[in-house]
């Protein structure tokens, strides 16, 4: 299994509070991604990173920010959580120059009340 961990695994928070989710990899892959998965929508890309301090937006980036200060860590921050951000969040890693397949972490279930 690819060495990808996510923390926390479960979180319940209130509307308006900031939340940070962490993804940690031990594979030294250059690309890291944050997705959310919701029934009927599948996996949707929030943000991704192609190197330390290099990030770009995905299709559902509004309300989210990311940071990557080290190769192994990619943080997703909800500045002010809303109920529409209740979802399961997955981190993934890949090396596009070596096949491009993505490997996923175990996910974080976030509930915003």
């Amino acid at each position, binding site marked *: 299994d690819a060495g*990808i961990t996510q923390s926390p695994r479960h979180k319940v928070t209130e509307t308006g509070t900031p939340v940070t989710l962490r993804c940690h990899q031990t594979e030294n892959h250059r*690309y890291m991604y944050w997705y959310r998965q919701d029934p*009927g*929508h*599948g*996996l*949707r*890309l929030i943000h*991704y990173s*192609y190197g330390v301090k290099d990030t770009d937006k*995905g299709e559902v980036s509004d309300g989210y920010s990311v940071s990557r200060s080290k190769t192994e860590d990619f943080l997703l921050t909800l500045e002010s959580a809303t109920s529409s951000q209740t979802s399961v969040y*997955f981190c*993934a890693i*890949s090396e*596009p*120059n070596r*096949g*491009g*397949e*993505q*490997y*996923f*972490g*175990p*996910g974080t279930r976030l509930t915003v009340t």
Partner: protein
Amino acid sequence: EDQVTQSPEALRLQEGESSSLNCSYTVSGLRGLFWYRQDPGKGPEFLFTLYSAGEEKEKERLKATLTKKESFLHITAPKPEDSATYLCAAPNSGGYQKVTFGTGTKLQVIP
């Protein structure tokens, strides 16, 4: 716009009853197609990459095939442990940096 569509949304099979899942895509300059398996409460697990039309990959009871417009995941004599959601994904037109996922087929295999 890159799109990946999977059908059916759900499939219920008796143990041993073979079937196929479909993944159709509209991505210009297709560079490959990925198949994943996702168990409840877990992240997707990579299964196969198919790079060109005519290519086939096999793993146990699963065989993935690719044409110019779609991919099939054939399941031969499935067992209950094959029950999962199967996702396909295609790299976006710009390359492997981003992919578009289908919404998946939820497979249930009944003993």
